[in-house]
């Protein structure tokens, strides 16, 4: 059977705490690995005996399998607590990718909210690895507090590699000298060349909607905005229908889709 249907065994080789409730696991295959992944794709991670959840891949291509997990329920809690050497199941990779290779020659604007930075990180790393192929690279990150910013230790390196990284928090803490407010305020302030911009947006759905609207107000076409949608992914192979949103099965047709396609779906209640 394919590794898209049956979990491959992977061992946790390292576990890094990003925030109080979010960890990044580095995994290596025990037997046969899953196929190569593209930035934006996800896997189904199986905590044996507890359950399976979809988790975005947070590592760049060729960097092994990195998965960043926020503890929000029984399965993610078990995965977050997985220690070095523990074996978990992995199916995938599934879904569409950010398509950054197709944006060569353009400005890249990455807009991330909370743990939404995790699925964007592979795209950002791919862009920075081929920095000369892109024009301006702007990364706008929203977080609840400075302490809840994931990959905080990498921000300086991203700046060194030519990205304009700006962080804004909902609530400042002592010693915070950065921006305070909502991430859409940053969109209003950055230079945008609307005809030559590809925007990649990931975070809570309300935040993505507002960010996409702000980008559209700045003249960016909805087809040039990519969003990563979240629904109830189960099978990963477009068979069970749990992740249906309108005509799309997000595990196959998403999670990354254009805002042009997403906008009419996101405005329908209970879809």
């Amino acid at each position: 059977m394919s590794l898209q249907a049956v979990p491959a065994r992977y061992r946790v080789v390292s576990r890094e705490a990003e925030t109080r409730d979010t960890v990044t696991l580095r995994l290596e295959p025990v037997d046969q690995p899953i196929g190569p992944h593209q930035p934006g794709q996800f896997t189904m991670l199986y905590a044996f005996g507890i359950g399976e959840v979809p988790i975005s891949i947070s590592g760049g291509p060729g960097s092994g399998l990195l998965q960043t997990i926020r503890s929000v329920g029984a399965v993610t809690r078990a995965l977050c607590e997985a220690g070095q050497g523990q074996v978990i199941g992995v199916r995938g990779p599934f879904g569409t990718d950010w398509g950054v290779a197709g944006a060569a020659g353009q400005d890249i604007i990455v807009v991330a909210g909370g743990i939404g930075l995790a699925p964007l990180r592979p795209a950002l790393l791919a862009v920075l690895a081929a920095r000369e192929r892109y024009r301006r690279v702007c990364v706008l990150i929203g977080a609840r507090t400075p302490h809840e910013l994931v990959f905080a230790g990498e921000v300086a390196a991203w700046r060194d590699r030519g990205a304009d990284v700006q962080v804004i928090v909902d609530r400042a803490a002592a010693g915070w000298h950065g921006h305070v407010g909502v991430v859409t305020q940053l969109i209003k302030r950055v230079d945008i060349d609307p005809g030559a911009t590809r925007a990649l947006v990931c975070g809570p759905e309300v935040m993505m909607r507002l960010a996409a609207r702000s980008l559209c107000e700045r003249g960016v076409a909805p087809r040039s905005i990519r969003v990563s949608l979240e629904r109830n992914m189960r099978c990963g192979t477009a068979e069970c229908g749990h992740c249906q949103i309108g005509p799309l099965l997000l595990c196959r047709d998403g999670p990354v889709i254009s805002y042009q396609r997403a906008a009419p779906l996101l405005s329908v209640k209970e879809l």
Partner: protein
Amino acid sequence: MSSSEAAGLADHPFLRGMSADCVALLGAAAVAVSVPAGRRLFDEGAPADKCWLLTRGNVALDLHMPGQRNLIVETLGSGDVIGFSWLSPPHVWQFGAETVEPTGAFELDGAAVTALCDTHPDLGYQIALRMLAAAVRRLQATRIRLLDLYGMPGQDAGPR
């Protein structure tokens, strides 16, 4: 105000679309200022008699916390207006403000702008509309922050 400063005032996002006559009137109450980082623009409880149209840099709106550093409520940058309290009674700053980095702005004298608006209703209407729009944007941003979107528990369901 120099001709380039007058052009800069007319180009400020807050005034975009305002008639040249109204901008020229407002120019009489405006002065271009450069403020170094770490300078307080105003303090909570002090008389409110100015507002600033920011052209560069960043300003933190803050609130005094007894026994602690000031708590930053929001940061504002290029294109924003800072200072609403001069418009309405009791004309006292409700928050404080401090430049986070070297900041450029057009500083408007509240009493002079009020007098201009009283004698030129067209200007008064345009100013009122723009202040209302800025206040609505701030209110909406505040409401979004109140939702605590990033702190929502979510479910073991979607790929994040």
